[in-house]
Structure formats: C-alpha cells, structure tokens
C-alpha cells in the first residue's frame, strides 16, 4: 500500500500510517506494547498493526482472548505501572462489553488519584459503515466517547493526520481513544475513500490535539466534519463551488479537546454552518458543534445551522436502506439549499 511517486512522495494508507507510527515509537520506547484480538499474526483485521509482530515479537504484540474487559483493564494497570500500552477494540460497536474499563477506569484514574498516577495508553478502535455490515458493526459512536470526561478522542481523516495523531497519542500521559474509520483505512475490501491515502513523511512527527484543520477555505458556508465526514464535506464543497458557492471545510481531527475557536472563527466569517456526522443525530456531535457556535455568538449567523447526521435508528444491513441513512455530499448540498432559502 506504499506508493513511491516521482517527487519522492510516500503515499500511505491510514492503516499503514498507524502501523508506522506505532513501530517507530516501539523502536525508541521499550515501554510501548500492544494487546488486542487478531493484532499479531493477522496484523489487525483492519491492517493497522501489520508487520508489528514480525518486528517486535509476540511479547510486545499480544493476541488476546475475546476478553475486552480483561485486556483493557490490564492495560490501565500496566500503564500505571510504567508501560505505555496500545490496545485495540476491534469495532467500536463492541464498547458495550468493556465500557466500564474504558470510561470508569482508564478515563478516571488520573483524576481519582489526584494526578498521582499517569495512564499513558491508546485505545484504537474502528468506526463507520457503508459496506453493509449491519447494526453491530457499522457505528461511529463518536459522541459516546467524547461525552464522557477523562479521555482524549481522536478521529483522523487522512494518513498524514493519522500518523501525527498516533505518535502524539503514544507520547501522551493521558488515555487517548483513537477512532479510525474503516472506510478510510485503505483496505480495498472495505471500499476505501481515496482521499484518505496521502503523502506521509517517513520521519516521526506529532500533531497537536485540539487543533482543527481548515482543509479548504471558503466564504459562504462552514462545513464541519470529522473522519469520513470531511471527505463528504470536501466533495460537497466541490459541488457547491460549481454553483459559485464557496465552502470552508473544517476537519475537527480531535473531539476531545474540541477546537471550538476555529469553528467559531470560520462561522463568524461565513455566517452559515453545516455539521456532518456519521454518528447518530441526537445528543451527539452535531448538537454540540451547533451549540458551541450559537452560545458564543448569534449575530453573525445568516441562517439556522444545519446537520447532516445519521438518523436515530440502528444501522440497517440492506444497502439501499443503509445508503439512505448515511451522510453524503448531496445531503450536504441540500442542507446548504435549505439555508439559502431561510
């Protein structure tokens, strides 16, 4: 999945970028090790640990039983004891079997100890649908994690960010939930978004948490998204551009911390806001982004903010139904049109 281009570029998939970040950190930091289901021999169901067991061996890259509560809880204990574990929850949909170890243990032990212990660990987990994997294998659940205090929440939209955010996560002394979208992984069998596979420097680098990226500048409307939503937003921006509408696209990159300033600045400029979110509509990301803008300032708004989110229904298997529910560029354009009429 590495393509060498003429201009000395290295186009990497997100899967590769993640694995590279982890490998580079493992080389310089013996405390980093991995636990998860099918992360060793198989290299991760979504390819993001490929090559690691071959290089670092089965002591540091550990296939686990299907015991998420045990190995995530164990990671917290190992982190407090001086290690820097990386654990994988194969699909975020499975959080329900182990959420206590995540939100009540991993996320709270720093606070409960008054800062006496550190919990340097990364929980990687896959999100997203679009390939008919039905309602227990296609969710995003971004807000489910971002709502609960004590964990940083990261969701890259491309391989460059994926590597930088992973390295930053590995060096953080607080727990980081690293949510990668299956449709961006660069695994062909999941129907990959080509825009996620980008040039990635070979050397190690970090991206700061809490800095959203303005991935396209515009004047007439701000479209805020994360992960797959960014690609939908960029496509919608192209469509809008053909109609003479100039859309600014913001990639949140991290939900916790949330870069409200960048969003507010952009909306102050454009006067219009659309939030794109593949997570469920209500009580989630889209509501938070909109509230964050309007509680700050109403005056600049030219139209009611809009959301293009997943409806509040379990994710259906059948392709026509699932595609009906998913955010897409056309829905974003429609949301703009609703605002234009307002």
């Amino acid at each position, binding site marked *: 999945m590495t393509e060498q281009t003429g201009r000395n570029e290295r186009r990497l998939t997100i899967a590769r970028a993640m694995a590279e970040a982890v490998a580079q950190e493992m080389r310089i930091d013996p405390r980093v090790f991995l636990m998860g*289901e*099918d992360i060793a*021999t*198989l290299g991760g*169901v979504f390819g993001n640990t490929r090559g690691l067991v071959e290089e670092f061996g089965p002591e540091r890259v550990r*296939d*686990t*039983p*299907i*015991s998420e*509560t045990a190995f995530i809880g164990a990671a917290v204990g190992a982190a407090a004891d001086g290690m820097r574990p990386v654990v994988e929850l194969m699909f975020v*949909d*499975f959080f*329900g*079997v182990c959420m206590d170890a995540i939100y009540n243990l991993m996320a709270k032990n720093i606070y409960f100890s008054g800062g006496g212990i550190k919990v340097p660990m990364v929980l990687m987990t896959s999100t997203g649908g*679009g*390939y*008919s*994997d*039905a*309602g*227990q*294998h296609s969710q995003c659940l971004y807000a489910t994690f971002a709502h609960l205090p004590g964990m940083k929440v990261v969701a890259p939209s491309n391989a460059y960010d994926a590597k930088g955010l992973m390295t930053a996560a590995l060096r953080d002394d607080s727990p980081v939930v690293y949510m990668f979208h299956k449709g961006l992984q660069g695994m*062909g*069998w*999941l*129907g990959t978004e080509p825009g996620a596979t980008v040039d990635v420097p070979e050397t190690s680098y970090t991206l700061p948490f809490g800095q959203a990226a303005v991935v396209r500048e515009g004047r007439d409307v701000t479209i805020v998204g994360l992960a797959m939503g960014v690609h939908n937003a960029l496509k919608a921006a192209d469509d809008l551009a053909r109609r003479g509408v100039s859309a600014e696209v913001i990639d949140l990159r991290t939900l916790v911390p949330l870069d409200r300033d960048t969003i507010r600045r952009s909306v102050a400029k454009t006067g219009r806001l659309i939030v794109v979110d593949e997570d469920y509509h209500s009580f989630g990301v889209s509501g938070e982004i909109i509230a964050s803008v309007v509680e700050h300032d109403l005056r600049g708004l030219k139209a009611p903010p809009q959301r293009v989110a997943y*409806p*509040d*229904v*379990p994710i*259906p*298997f*059948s*392709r*026509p*139904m*699932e*595609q*009906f*529910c998913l955010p897409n560029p056309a829905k974003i354009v429609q949301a703009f049109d609703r605002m234009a009429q307002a």
Partner: protein
Amino acid sequence: MAPTIAQKRWMYRHMLISRRFEEAIERIYFEGKTPAFNMANGPIPGEMHLSNGQEPCAVGVCAHLDAGDVVTSTHRPHHVAVAKGVDLKRMAAEIFGKAAGLSGGRGGHMHIFDPAVNFSCSGIIAQGMGPAVGAALSRKLQGKPGVAVAFLGEGAVNQGAFHETLNLAALWQLPVVFVVEDNAWGISVSKRQSTAVPRNDVRAAAYGMPGTYVPGNDPLAVFAAAGEAIERARGGAGPTLIEIETYRLAGHFMGDAEGYRPAGEKDALFARDPIPALRRRLIEDGSLDEAEADAIEAAAQATVDEAIAFARAADYPAPETALERVFA
C-alpha cells in the same frame, strides 16, 4: 441416546441443506466482488461467516428441539438456523437484503430472527447467552414447556457474559443448554492462544453443572450428548455445558486469507468432511441406501435452489423504510 432412522435421515438432510445453502451463498457472494474484492458490492454485501464443517453441532442438538424451543446462535448462524427450521426462503432474502427477508433487510446474515421457530442470533460474541437464559426463565415462570439452547464459539467462552450466564442458569436451575462449537479458532487466534484450559467442559464445574466434551465432529455423538442435556433441562434438572470438537472448512469470513492456519490443516479438514462421512455411515448401518441418500441430496439442493431463487427475485426494501421498526 441413539437417534432413530428418521432422526438420522433428518440430520443428514439438514446438514446437506445447510451445506448446499452456503455453497450457493459462497458463489453468489463473489458476484460483483471481482476483480477487486470489496465487501460493499454484489448481491450479498457485508461480512459473511460460513459454517460449513460445523453442521454436526447444529443437527445433533436441534434434532431434539421443536419450534417452541428457543435457540440463540452467533455470527456464524446458518447451520443452526437451518436445523432449527428457520424459513429458508426468508432467511435467504434477508441475507440478500430484500424486503421479503425475515427482518425486511434490516438484519442481514448476522441478525437472523425467526420468531415462528424462536430463533435469533447476534454479531456480538456471547451476546445470545443472556437471552437464552431469559427465555428459559420465562418458561419456568410461565410453567410453559420448552428449553433454550445457546450456541457459542470456543473463543466466546472467554467473554464475561459466559461466566455470568452460566452462574445464573445454574443458580436458578433453568432449562437451558450451552453448546460450545469448538472449531479451534477465533478468527486468527487459536484456542491454545486464548484459553487457559484445553477443554471448556471442565468449566462447567465452576457452576456445579454437568459438562460434556464431544470429540470428532460427529453428529451422532452430538445427538447423544445433547439429548441427555436437553432431557435434563426438560425434566427441570437444570443446565448443561457441552463442548463439541468441530472444524470450520472456510475462513473466518469470506475474504479471509487464512494465513494463520498451519500448513496442511485445511486439507486434513476436508478429508474429514462430516457430510460424506455421515452418508457413508448411514449407508453402512442400513439407515439409508445409495438411492435414498441421493434423493435426500437432490431434495436438499432443490430446497436451496428454491430459497435462492426466491431471494434473488425479491424486491429491495424502499430506502426510507430504514426509519421504521425502531420501536414496537
């Protein structure tokens, strides 16, 4: 406990239906997915977990059940669904994502629900165990007959839900049987890599319930062990844990390169395919002659063909019906 001739034929027939059904699914699954394999495409999109090789577990257990008994299965449900009497046409339609499917296309292959025969399954490891225990409790509370059977994989045994539900079932002496299909692998992780004991039947002792191990992927041995357990359950004597040695002939899901398998494992498994083995055995013991066996085979194929044709011909659901049926 030995099966009657009718039961043996029933088992053979249902193993065949399941196998032929999955052969059809397998073929159709690749339609639209070549040259580039992309799960999202083709008439059957999404993950596909085949149960071929594991049919003995399904028929050996379900031979003792009727429609009123409750079965919960796993992400690998077809063989059990077939043996439990799930409507094959509507199951096929569901797997194709059609409106005529059991759930109108909302569930797909990991969410097969047929209330008419009390069958359900789930994509989450060990999730079906609680509902099986609850159905058993419901029968006990209502004084209604019926047992519940929860199927799970040997990998699922290490999930917390296993422990909690076995304790609850034993504590309340519920009419439920737990059936572990030990196909040696949980995706790419072997039983030895995941499980601190070689055999899970020993874990029954932790709940004061009987545990049985059935070697050899043998439908008749499964029949005997399951028969005893189900009789116990029906008689009010409480739950049993059964582990069955079985094999999966396919990958974990379709598209799995199976690089984790030791060399030669697959060939050895195919040499022990339980379906030709049962055919030979039933012919040898006089339960069937060649012609009868062929006729069963042909009938199984016809049943499958009909189901697949039904599914193919059925309509897709209207997209906006995705918003319906969230609540009762």
